[in-house]
């Protein structure tokens, strides 16, 4: 049980689980009824899956220049994916899509301050 074997097994597990999360996010994107619930499914899994996949790749590569490039890509993705879903949610709210649910109390875009 050398240390490389353990690292490779952990990296393979992270890659596999990242892929499974991406597929689950895709299924959720299709099956949920509303824009906002679909955004919830899509953005959370879309942020977690690259985190796991790139983490697995970093474990496989070791400590090289390639590690910093992969971490830069991960940093960029972590910044832009939640902002993109936030912008989509604001656009949907501004277009007048009402969230599903029995007790929506008029959540208009004019009342939110940020």
């Amino acid at each position, binding site marked *: 049980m050398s240390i490389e074997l353990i690292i490779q097994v952990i990296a393979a597990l992270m890659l596999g689980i990242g892929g499974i999360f991406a597929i689950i996010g895709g299924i959720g994107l299709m099956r949920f009824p509303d824009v906002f619930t679909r955004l919830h499914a899509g953005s959370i899994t879309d942020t977690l899956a690259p985190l796991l996949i790139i983490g697995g790749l970093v474990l496989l590569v070791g400590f090289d220049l390639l590690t910093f490039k992969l971490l830069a890509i991960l940093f*960029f993705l972590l*910044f*832009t994916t939640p*902002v993109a879903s*936030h*912008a989509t949610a*604001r656009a949907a709210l501004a277009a007048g899509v009402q969230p599903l649910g029995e007790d929506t109390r008029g959540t208009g875009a004019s009342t939110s301050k*940020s």
Partner: protein
Amino acid sequence: MKDNSILVIVARFLIPLVMLFGLYVQFHGEYSPGGGFQAGVLFAAAWILFVLIYGLETGLRVIPLRVIYSLGCLGVLLYCAVGLMGVILGGRFLDYQPLLATPQAAQQAGIILVEFGVGVTVASVVMMIFLQFARRRAQSQAAGLELDQEQDRS
């Protein structure tokens, strides 16, 4: 969208990063995949992101309209000027040999200048196309004309 603090903060982080990466792709076009076309598109995308967040007038104050028009033509003129330098210094059109002393340095200098011209042209053309569309929509709304989509929404 400029009073939405989340978008403003992330854009303030991202726009210089995208521009820097565009310049990196431009000048490393000889060692890694890259070159003029990709770099021009990346630079224009950073400017378009700025316009989407801060508005078209602020975007046009950062890079004025005359600058965009003239840079588009200056890029192609730089390309042709490098070609004519080859003719003036004794070779054929777009011959990089007479530019510098050693043949390898001359080729590299010619390639860098030519790709820079292409990058400048592509960036300014993409910026110009986007701002023409954006101004068209603003002009239609200001003139009070109903847009086609509001009539055809059945």
